[in-house]
């Protein structure tokens, strides 16, 4: 962790997905003889039963495609705010960021700020226009005036690549984490996650997926608040005392109060900033949430609430991390050879046990498991929507498929995605999957974000420009990531990277914008002229919401 270079997000996102590396290889022995954690398993079973009841209830209410893909537009702004916050408060944020604060202090706060700063931009630039232009997926908005076949195919590819990369990272993380927390075998954990997420998504659709996410977000916020309060109580509610005791307890001393990991390479710092900011604005499973609310007004309100909750949650993770430096790092129960048992991402979990006892440990462990389940469900639904609504209904059937067929394809797609996620989760067991989540953000920032924002704001964008530019963004993000230090050196074992920077997003996003602009401007086809002419109607609808999909019947 003391290694110079902008590693911190790799670690924050991936150390939980890859605790073997973060723990310096100390994990497998711990995991092998981890006892069954009965209170945690009990509380998790309660969560599973409750969510299955919700899925049953949701399945009975899911009659139309609008119910299935967008919860019938019947989710309120406040509920959607919680759900969006829940999508973003993944196990990586909860355990990864608090673990990062535990190991290097201030760097964890830098990550939190990157995670938050994208939301205001989503609100100002995207939320209301997306709600007014689309129905189920962000591709609806992009293909409003552009060629449906090529643009939807591209958007679906962008969605599926992001979803699959993200799912692999979550699955590998889930398997390892559950192994440590519950004492279950890795394979059993991965299969359990896969089966539950397919049940939620295929039977309960967006209604179940949203409510699972809302419940988990509330539980996570509650658990984190309690944990932070217990920590602050110990320090007499004085931040000064908490920080000074942390400085005294941490081997790095005062260095935990200042940025440490990012200093060596400004280009990587910027590129990482780009990935975090614009990647957030291009995550398909978050963008689809704007279609679950009745109108643009509720869409805006939901971003405000989500921003507040995410900001609050990140501040709690900072308190948890600094608290763990004092409370956990000096407690022999949690240490193996001077390092944290189970890796740094276990900081919040150990803190729960140290400060509030075994029952609370069980609660926090169950919440961590629920967090993974809720996030993979959202991802799976997003991928299934891209396959059924974008590819099957619009591209293959050219828009004349009966609703029932499309929903059936969506259910089949969610099962296929579930099987794929479980298989990939097992294939990548114990491997470094850090780069996959990073690549997911880079692809979101280089494919989904540019074509979405340009389709809404730039009259001259044409189908040809969007497709060539988006494909450029996708290819350059993947190729630069593979040739960079994360994959070329750390995964493939080569000595020197071909591409020197760890984060490709700055370059791949600029390439996508530049190619899109050049190809659009030189596009003199009759179709391009028609697409530009359609901009005014799209613009008026995006602003006024006239003709936008209304709430179904709730």
């Amino acid at each position, binding site marked *: 962790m003391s290694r110079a270079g902008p590693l911190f997000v790799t670690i924050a996102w991936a150390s939980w997905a890859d605790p073997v590396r973060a723990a310096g290889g100390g994990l497998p022995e711990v995991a092998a003889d981890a006892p069954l954690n009965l209170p945690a398993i009990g509380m998790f079973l309660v969560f599973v039963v409750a969510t299955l009841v919700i899925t049953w209830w949701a399945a009975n209410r899911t009659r139309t495609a609008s119910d299935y893909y967008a919860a019938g537009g019947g989710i309120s702004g406040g509920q959607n705010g919680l759900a969006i916050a829940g999508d973003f408060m993944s196990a990586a944020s909860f355990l990864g960021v608090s673990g990062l604060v535990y190991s290097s202090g*201030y760097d964890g*706060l*830098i990550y*939190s*700020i*990157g995670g*938050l*700063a994208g*939301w*205001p*931009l989503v*609100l*100002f*630039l995207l939320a*209301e226009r997306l709600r007014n232009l689309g129905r189920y997926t962000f591709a609806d908005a992009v293909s409003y005036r552009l060629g449906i076949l090529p643009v939807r195919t591209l958007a679906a590819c962008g969605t599926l690549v992001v979803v699959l990369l993200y799912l692999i990272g979550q699955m590998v993380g889930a398997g390892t984490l559950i192994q440590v927390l519950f004492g279950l075998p890795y394979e059993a954990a991965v299969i359990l996650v896969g089966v539950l997420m397919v049940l939620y998504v295929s039977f309960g659709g967006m209604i179940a997926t949203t409510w699972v996410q809302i419940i988990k977000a509330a539980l996570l916020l509650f658990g984190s608040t309690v944990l932070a309060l217990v920590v602050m109580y110990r320090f007499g509610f004085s*931040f*000064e005392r908490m*920080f*000074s005791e942390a*400085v005294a307890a941490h081997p790095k001393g*005062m260095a935990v*109060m*200042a*940025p*440490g990991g*990012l*200093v060596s*390479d*400004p280009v990587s*710092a*910027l590129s*990482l*900033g780009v990935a975090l*900011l614009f990647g957030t604005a291009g995550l398909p499973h978050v963008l689809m949430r704007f279609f679950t609310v009745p109108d*643009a*007004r509720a869409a*805006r*309100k939901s*971003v*405000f609430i989500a*921003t*507040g909750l995410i*900001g609050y949650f*990140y*501040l709690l993770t900072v308190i948890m991390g600094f608290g763990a430096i004092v409370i956990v790092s000096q407690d022999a129960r949690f240490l193996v050879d001077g390092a944290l048992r189970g890796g740094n991402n276990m900081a919040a979990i150990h803190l729960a046990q140290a400060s509030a006892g075994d029952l609370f440990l069980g609660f926090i462990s169950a919440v961590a498991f629920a967090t993974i389940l809720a996030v993979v469900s959202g991802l799976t639904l997003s991928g299934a929507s891209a396959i059924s609504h974008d590819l099957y209904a619009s591209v293959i059937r050219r828009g004349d498929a009966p609703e029932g067929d499309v929903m059936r394809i969506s259910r089949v797609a969610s099962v296929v995605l579930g099987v794929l996620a479980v298989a990939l989760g097992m294939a990548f067991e114990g491997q470094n999957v850090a780069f996959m989540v990073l690549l997911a953000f880079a692809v979101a920032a280089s494919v989904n974000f540019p074509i979405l924002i340009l389709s809404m704001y730039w009259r001259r964008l044409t189908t040809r420009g969007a497709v060539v530019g988006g494909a450029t963004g996708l290819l350059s993000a993947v190729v630069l990531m593979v040739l960079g230090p994360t994959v070329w050196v750390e995964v493939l074992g080569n000595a020197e990277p071909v591409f020197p920077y760890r984060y490709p997003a700055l370059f791949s996003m600029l390439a996508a914008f530049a190619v899109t602009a050049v190809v659009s401007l030189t596009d003199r086809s009759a179709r391009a002229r028609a697409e530009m002419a359609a901009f*005014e*109607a799209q*613009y*008026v*609808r995006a*602003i*006024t919401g*006239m*003709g936008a999909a209304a709430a179904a019947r709730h």
Partner: protein
Amino acid sequence: MNDLYQRIFADPEFQALQRRRSRLIWMLSTIMLVTYFGFILVIAFAPEFFAAPLGADTVITRGIPIGVGIILLGLALTGIYVHRANGEFDTTTADIVQRLRDDSR
């Protein structure tokens, strides 16, 4: 319907509203982007600025209140936008659409 879209687009009151809306969107976006990338650049080029303690008798560094401040700034900016858009902008838009619909009858 298409005709109504065109008349809304060409309406002077609508265009004036859109200029106000655009100005607000770009102003708030610029504040957020400049603040965030400024923060990243300070970390990249002058991290010692954030490492300086606030006073002689404290371990809290400049970086802590600045970091927390950026999170609060993000929330405040979204609050400002939602307030203006859900109030003034939506009301004005609805009035314009209503007026042009009535005209066409």
